[in-house]
């Protein structure tokens, strides 16, 4: 009963998102995000139909759509990155470098798990692989948010909602899959419930934040000075403060 209720509410919330996007023409503004939502909406209906009509197929359909969903989810992070850093070429460079470092650190774990799976895929190993791929996404999202906060990039309510909802969902999924990977089927009942609720939370956040279109208020002006001049000035000021602090040291 609980599963069906969650399923129904999720489909309703997804439908509301898609309907609002069609009505307000938000599809043009966030094409990748709404494509992702449309995909998830169709995926939910497909899964529900398979669960009811062909329960034997459910497991394989679930894992197939789950992996496609993960790849589609990466594109949501990509769109956030493109929209948020539009007009900030310097910050884009910084974000790209930070993402590359995060990717190198986290993707190695995915490769290790995938290599283990080459000898035969157990359900626990599949769960761990999904968790590792999701973890790469969590790291990428956190890095992007850190860069946004560090450089004080203005964000619209829509973008905040997209990243908050997706980040929340990803974090809870990684947490759940870790428990599932470690404790196995003993915790499966609780984990699936929490995962379903976390997705509902993300959908709620998206519905609230994307109910109406909010453009980003202000964009940065092109830097007046060259980057080397800005750096030289900052270095000089930091050196002055450091000298001041060091002058009191014995």
């Amino acid at each position, binding site marked *: 009963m609980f599963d069906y209720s969650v399923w129904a509410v999720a489909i309703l919330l997804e439908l509301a998102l898609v309907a609002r996007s069609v009505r307000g023409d938000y599809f043009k503004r966030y094409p990748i995000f709404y494509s992702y939502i449309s995909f998830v909406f169709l995926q939910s209906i497909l899964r529900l139909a398979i669960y009811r009509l062909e329960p034997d197929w459910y497991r394989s359909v679930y894992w197939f759509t789950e992996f496609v969903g993960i790849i589609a989810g990466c594109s949501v992070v990509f769109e956030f990155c493109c929209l948020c850093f539009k*007009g*900030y*070429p*310097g*910050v884009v*460079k*910084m974000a*790209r*470098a*930070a993402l590359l470092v995060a990717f190198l650190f986290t993707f190695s774990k995915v490769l290790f798990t995938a290599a283990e799976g080459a000898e035969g895929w157990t359900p626990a190993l599949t769960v761990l692989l999904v968790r590792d791929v999701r973890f790469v996404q969590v790291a990428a999202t956190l890095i992007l948010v850190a860069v946004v906060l*560090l*450089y*004080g*990039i203005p964000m619209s309510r829509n973008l905040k909602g997209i990243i908050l909802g997706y980040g929340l969902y990803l974090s809870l999924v990684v947490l759940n899959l870790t428990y599932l990977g470690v404790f196995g089927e003993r915790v499966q009942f609780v984990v699936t419930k929490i995962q379903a609720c976390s997705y509902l939370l993300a959908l709620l956040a998206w519905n609230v934040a994307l109910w109406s279109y909010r453009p980003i208020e202000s964009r*940065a*002006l*092109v*830097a*007046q*000075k*060259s*980057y*080397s001049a*800005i*750096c030289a*000035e*900052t*270095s000089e*000021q*930091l050196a*002055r*403060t*450091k000298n*001041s*602090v*060091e*002058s*009191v*040291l*014995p």
Partner: protein
Amino acid sequence: MTEYALIAAATMSVLLFVVLFRRATQDAREEAQAGCRGLNDAGDWWEHGSYVSRAVLQQIFSQDDENFLNGEADPGTKFFFRRERKKLALRWIERRKLEAAAVMRTHRQAARGAEDLQPSEEMRLLLRHAKLKIMCEALAVTVWLAGPQSLHGLAQRADEIFHGAQRLRQAVRSRGDASAQQAQ
């Protein structure tokens, strides 16, 4: 079980230390922030680089006044003097921290629109700022625990301990060499 208890006790101690330190320096932080916003008069003479600031600074962190009071003043005056001096020192440190943070904030605002931004340079500046912040925090903890006038005394004591340890190591090494020669 004992390990968990020890880890919990250590964590609690660290937390307690941090909470006490934050509470003790809260006034200094608030005053420094108000100074930076121009809400009090301290901003004018507190600006670093000016003659008054340098002179005051040397006085705050020197032992001269402390030595003078040790011979002249009653315990109540000494207590009051140490408390006020500590407050001043902490406020100065907070001011430097805020100043460094403001420098970085201004830098990021200017750099975010630059097309030729170099991530490696940004990281270098970020690390420099982190180093400066750690330095300020260490200084603040030392001042909070021992007082600003004790900095020089502490350094001397650390130097003595270091040299003492070096002498001990040399003595042990020479004794080891002598016993090795005897064995041969």
